[in-house]
């Protein structure tokens, strides 16, 4: 399987603070990987670097074929951060339709995407500002489902979700990996998430530990 993420000695700065200090990581297409570690360890920064949102200050990185060190922007990366990236005055349906249009994907799939994450009926046409945090997270997830990215980057996606929503999220992620996409998620919930990923890596003080790189490209 091809490589989705390949980082070597990656350094990323937040102002003057080295959020990532020489990180090596390989993630292949079809793999799902959990990044876990204490608060402030660099989970969010790692995801943002892979999304092309945080530039590399040193080291090498290739994400979906885009060379990060040459200011390349990876295309086809789905990102769900702590903030869902929604427009408060628009409804869930309108938000997902907009995201689809942004990606050049027909907006007609928006309704189905929302259903997939358990948002059905009139709640889809209410302004997103009136939804709970968990519901907003689900709208953000639906947007990803609608655009079918090749790489999924999620920052603590299970936080604030009830049991039903969590299992829907899990099935969405499993389906994505099964369809050949790569999934990288940061989470504190090691036991729960550990069941749905193929491996996990530990991050602390901006560095990774655990099985982070592949020596060869043999399928797992």
């Amino acid at each position, binding site marked *: 399987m091809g490589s989705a993420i390949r980082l070597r000695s990656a350094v990323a700065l937040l102002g003057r603070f080295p959020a990532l200090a020489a990180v090596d990581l390989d993630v292949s297409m079809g793999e799902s990987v959990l990044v876990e570690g204490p608060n402030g360890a660099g989970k969010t920064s790692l995801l943002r670097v892979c999304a092309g*949102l945080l530039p590399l200050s040193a080291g090498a990185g290739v994400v979906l074929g885009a060379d990060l060190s040459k200011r390349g922007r990876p295309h*086809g990366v789905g990102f769900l951060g702590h*903030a869902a990236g929604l427009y408060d*005055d*628009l409804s869930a349906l309108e938000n997902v339709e*907009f995201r689809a249009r942004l990606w050049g994907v027909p907006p007609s799939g928006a309704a189905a995407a929302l259903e997939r994450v358990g948002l059905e009926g009139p709640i889809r046409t209410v302004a997103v500002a009136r939804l709970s945090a968990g519901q907003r997270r689900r709208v953000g997830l639906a947007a990803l489902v609608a655009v079918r990215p090749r790489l999924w980057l999620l920052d603590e996606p299970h936080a604030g979700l009830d049991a039903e929503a969590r299992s829907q999220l899990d099935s969405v992620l499993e389906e994505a990996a099964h369809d050949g996409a790569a999934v990288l998620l940061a989470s504190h919930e090691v036991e729960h998430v550990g069941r749905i990923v193929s491996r996990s890596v530990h991050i602390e003080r901006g560095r990774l530990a655990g099985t982070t790189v592949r020596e060869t490209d043999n399928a797992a």
Partner: protein
Amino acid sequence: MLREAFVVAAKDLRIEARSHVGRTQVVPFALVVVVLFGLALDPDRGLLTRAAPGLLWVTVLLTALLATQRSLALESADRAVDQLRVSGIDPAAVFLGKAAALSVQLLVVVTALAVGVVVLYGAVLASPLLLIASALVATAGLALAGTLYGAVAAGLRVRETLVPLLVLPVVAPVLLGATRAWEAGVGLAVSDGWPWLRLLVAFMVVFAAAGVMAFGPLLEDA
């Protein structure tokens, strides 16, 4: 790229339609300023009528600052800007789309103010074509400059105070051009208003080009 710009503009206008901020806050703000000018200057009809174009365009300028801040706040509120970047959309499309939506909102303000100025200051719409043409180009220029400077100050805590300081000196040519064109358009000036339209077009072109080129690098650290 134009398709993407249209998608962004449509989104902004849909938000505007949904939230009514333009209708309930921006236009009333502009009209209140017009009334305040009326209070501050002698209710001697002659002075107000003569100053009407200038007062109108100063009001538009101030309103544009508000509208620009609002336009940019939409993207930073829930980190929607991250999604714009990640989608792979051309940053120039984001720039043009947002500026286009902003222009439409400012045109609504100009229309409302034109009515206000006719009613309150006794202005006469002598040359409507000149008035409309210059209004279109001037608001486009303001929207482009505002969106660009908003991005320059994006993510800064002091953005609300910094953007006015940065933008107002720069849009001086628009104020000059639009005011002179409108003076001619309401029959107040002896000289021709049309040369000013050329200046306004030049301004619009310069800022469109600047924004298209600069928005990519600027979005990189939004």
